[in-house]
């Protein structure tokens, strides 16, 4: 199965904290896909768990890779754009 990768940047000054993590989880669950997120070259976390995402301890300014198991580029682009939106500063 093909996987589409995208990059997002954490712009929220507090980093990847509870609120954006829970927003991402909600989106991921709605998509029904096994999406993973992490730092490039390190272990990725399943994005269906806010706790796992928070445990990555991502700080403001870090760039993350999102991996989406789909061949649908438009769907992937839309999911990545929404995730990026959650990671913006208030």
């Amino acid at each position, binding site marked *: 199965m093909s996987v589409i990768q995208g990059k997002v940047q954490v712009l929220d000054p507090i980093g990847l904290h509870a609120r954006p993590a829970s927003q991402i989880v909600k989106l991921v669950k709605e998509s029904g896909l096994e999406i993973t997120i992490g730092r490039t070259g390190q272990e990725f976390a399943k994005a269906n768990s806010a*706790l796992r995402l928070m445990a990555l301890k991502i700080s*403001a300014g870090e760039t993350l890779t999102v991996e989406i198991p789909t061949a649908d580029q438009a769907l992937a682009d839309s999911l990545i754009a929404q995730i990026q939106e959650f990671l913006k500063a208030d």
Partner: protein
Amino acid sequence: MPSQPGAILKGLGVGLVSAVGDVLIVKQSKPLPEWTRSTKSIDEEISELKSAIDFVSKNLDELGQKAGGTSAEIFEALKTLIEDEELMEVATANIDVGWGAAAAIGKAVDEFAELLGGDPTFEERVADFQDLSKRVQARIAGIEMALSIPEKGRIVLVGEDFSPADTAQFTDAVVGVITLKGGPTSHTAIICRSKSIAAVVSCPDAASLETGDRVLVDPVGDRVLVSDDESLATKSLEFVAINSEPLVPVRANIGTLEDAKAARETRANGVGLFRTELLYLSAKTQPSLEQQVASYTEILKAAPEGPIVVRTIDAGSDKPVPFLNMPEEENPSLGVRGYRLIVDHRDFIESQLKALESARVASGREVWVMAPMIATAEEAKAFADLARSIGGYKVGIMVETPSIALIVDQLGGVIDFVSVGTNDLSQYLFAADRMNPSLGALLNHWQPALIKSLARIASGAKAAGISSGVCGESASDPAFAVVLAGLGMDSVSVSKSQVTAVHNALSSLSLADAKEVANAVLKETTAEAARATALREIANR
């Protein structure tokens, strides 16, 4: 020992509203039972756990609906945590190896709490998360955890401190709140201020109160009285301006373009503190010189008439700016922050000074620049030499460290001005972490040692022929601003919401009067007495 009628319990007041009401002690609930091995089938334990989580989660929904706004978002996020799939997986695994439902969830939450631990960002969340775990365990054990607060009457809640889940349950009957712990910036204090509930926090003596006691919550007096006489409440001072101009200029503190515009709408005379780091909290790469010139020029142009005091970047590992890549430190507030960044980031501080010079010329405004976290006269001189080699502004330093506070008189001819950051000066003077809610009393700006230090700074600056000002929170307290003027400070800078109040206070008496107030305050030996004396002396003018 129960409190006698007329007893006075000291604490820290929140807001200006006082109230009389009947004490309701909010007790810690019955202790949760110890974790045990399961005596039921795996399926029974799992379904019991699921229904308890479901119960707590529905409860969060209700709390969120009641609270609305930003608090609703907090409850939504908490709900995601307790309903987390991975959490359930770990808990199920615990049940599989023989633990009961309560132990299974408790252990699973502990495991995740440990993963999230050590990061200050999550400290509060972890505490909330553990609170949820207790709620689920209480549900499993059949223990009632929700507060039951009457809907009618005049209730004064007394407890250790209140969590967001607790404060969301405050009914209209709650007219007052007293906490044994928690400081003026605790969640309880913020909620009470926004709902205009009379509150006194950090009041350990309230442990002697009993349910049914009639008390007067008197935040202006920083106390609780065992009395039903509302007329005993300390009056907040009403300042009537008699002069058209304040004793010393009242400037505004800003951090963004929006702040600058809002400050212009007030009577502020210029800006006493422009915090530049707020522009860079999310910048991953160093802003170019052109970007800096553009944003500074825009802000300088928008700022209220008068001089604009700009502070060079004040970041540290507790206030990280991504592009500066600051390593984690054991004690961030005692580490490489403020001007100390010059060792590794001279290029950025120089680029700020260059950009400020271009913005100064482009905007035609009077600009003063200052560096934060200066500890020695050598550092002050090094910064002054650097700034003067770059631009035509007045040059000064922040006084935040006790070391520089002691030698302001030696800075004549080195710099043009000093500006005191009382929040950090208190933190370092009293060795009391600003972030620690249980140390709130030491960080009270009426502490005699702080006032003595301010007196010394003001007289040192006079002797050295340099101008002195205060830009910390303390100057936003109108009565304290009068004391500052009386001590000889040449200006104050306050949050924009306080400009009018401080302006009025400083226009309500003569400089000679302010000096007498300050001299009376300097004789006091406790923060409570210092404040009481200031209010009494001001009222008698």
